[in-house]
């Protein structure tokens, strides 16, 4: 039989004994460590697109091609603009002629294979333009599936491709739910928008942001609370693309419609 004093002593010792290793576990909890480590990075680039402001001029697509040396006539692009036209009878038409490299200069919708759809203005319920680019996801599925470590995420959130290491298997291209990746026609490696990394790391904006006359595109740093982009993302209603894939995309859309694919 144990007396009360001994029982209490034993209990206190027992609790202290268990608490100590548990505390140690807290200190060496890797998740906490990681959080501390990643907090030292002061920059995380994010993008903001206002689909009310975009007029589909395609200057961003042209500028991106020239700035990032993607052959102008090649039918691939790091960024593009989509047009959506929703008619009164409930149909949705969408196209992106050459990625809107030359803008949208006709009201006819390009249906592919040489077919076009004429739509009368009075039949349109709503129509708008949606610029697209790499979302620099927080959980990039393209990086996860690269077999050789040729594509990666830099600490500031930008996902890039190492042209000297990429073997050209195309797994990252198949892994991207947003279709932003492609094979560079000259280097034959995987290619995609990298937020004009050579510009933003010099304090400039991306080429597409600079050339947009209407301010439809903006780039910002989500870790800076005074950044105008951060303020909008935090205080106004914004949407993201294909949230169900769990990629945590970092390109935010004002005026994102349910019809946007």
């Amino acid at each position: 039989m144990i007396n009360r004093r001994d029982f209490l002593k034993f209990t206190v010792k027992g609790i202290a004994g268990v608490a100590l290793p548990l505390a140690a576990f807290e200190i060496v909890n890797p998740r906490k460590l990681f959080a501390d480590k990643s907090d030292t990075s002061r920059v995380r680039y994010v993008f903001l697109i206002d689909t009310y402001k975009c007029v589909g001029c395609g200057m961003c697509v042209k500028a991106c091609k020239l700035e990032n040396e993607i052959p102008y006539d090649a039918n691939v692009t790091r960024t593009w603009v989509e047009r959506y036209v929703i008619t009164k009878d409930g149909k949705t038409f969408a196209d992106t002629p050459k990625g809107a490299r030359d803008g949208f200069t006709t009201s006819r919708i390009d249906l592919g294979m040489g077919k076009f759809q004429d739509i009368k203005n009075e039949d349109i319920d709503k129509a708008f333009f949606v610029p697209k680019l790499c979302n620099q996801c927080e959980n990039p599925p393209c990086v996860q599936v690269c077999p050789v470590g040729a594509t990666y995420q830099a600490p500031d959130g930008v996902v890039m491709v190492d042209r000297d290491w990429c073997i050209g298997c195309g797994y990252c291209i198949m892994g991207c739910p947003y279709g932003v990746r492609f094979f560079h026609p000259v280097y034959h490696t995987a290619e995609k928008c990298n937020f004009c990394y050579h510009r933003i790391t010099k304090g400039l904006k991306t080429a597409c942001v600079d050339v947009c006359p209407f301010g439809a595109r903006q780039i910002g740093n989500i870790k800076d609370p005074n950044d105008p982009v951060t303020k909008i993302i935090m205080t106004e209603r914004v949407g993201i693309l294909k949230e169900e894939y769990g990629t945590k995309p970092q390109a935010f859309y004002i005026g994102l419609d349910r019809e946007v694919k």
Partner: protein
Amino acid sequence: MVHGELWTLKELFVYPNEYIYWSVQIVMYPFMTGLVAGAFVLSSLYHVFGIKQLREMARFALVFSFALLFVAPMPIVLHLQHPFRGVNIFMTPHFTSAIAAFGIVFSAYGAIVASELWFLYRKHFVEVALPLKEKQDKGLLEWLKFFVFCSLTLGVYDVSEETLKRDEKAIRVLAAIGIPVACFLHGYAGFIFGSVKANALWMTPLMPVIFIMSAIVSGIALCMLTYIVTMELRKWVSSRKKSPYRYSESKQELAGVEVNVIKITAKYLLMFLVLAITLELLDLIFRGYTAVKSWDVIRSVIYGRDFTDIFILQYAIGNLIPLVLFLLPGLTIRRAVLGVCFVLFGVFMMRWNVVIGGQAFSLTFAGYMHYHLPIVPYDWETFKEGLAGALSIALMPFPLFWVMSKIFPVFDAKGSH
């Protein structure tokens, strides 16, 4: 023309960068690795489970599996935009990617098969090397033969009963370890597709299992076919003139052995065929039942554009007809040949319908891409990613197998265990 533009025709709303990037070579790759895995599993059925009637087939299947192993990476080499950088997979593997498993799995599997072959044929190597060692004046060809077989012995010349028994134990161990590795070899190929959440058709946990089942089916079918062909050749040779083999087997003897082996092997083929069909139908039924966001466009692809490819070519000709052919009693060699040809075609169509079918619809779920396989090669790109490239890969195992049968004789009854 950007890569993929040549053979892709876009319809309705497709993203600008979308093309059919994974074309016929990516169809060939799982087909070839499936044959590798299937042939090995067939060989292991004898070594591990002791199914005595499969002894002849086991030797044959193992050597064929080894020949196929060298052909299997070829589709990848042809597909890669930078084939010489392919070595990066061994240098800096990123194991969060299923493709990175390629390096480890292929090397491990290659090591197992090579070792098993060594134990199986060690006695033969010694028996060829020793007399050549004694011979004083060797011709150039004999020198070559001596060099090859001497190195293959790995310096071990003991062929006593005791060591041969240890060899058999080693073979059994290797065959047993090899089965899960062979399953992994093809399971990972299924994982490559099944884990791509961006592709609505590929994304399913069933994909690795479906791939393994159909791989075993194709491996068994190919071994049966090649076995029948070689047996027919031997029968023709022995009936035409005095047999060149040390052991003259009459045509009747050969025929008797052949039918028995085929009948037993066909039983296993049937088993795995039923499993493969069940899993695929399960996947289809689930998709239709749950009808998630992608179901509208996938349904239009499966029941519309690709109906012939899926239901006529793959299910009817590739699965149903062989099922009937093998289930009917009194299996003849002729019926078996027809059956395995259809089975191989069906497995190929399954790979085609997964790879090409998965790229038949756009990520927008509001557009389609049509695949036009380049038939006539007029440059390197249209060769390697076209019909010519696919056929070269398909035919490559046979000359390789012939070369290997010179080192690992498949029908020499005395040379191996």
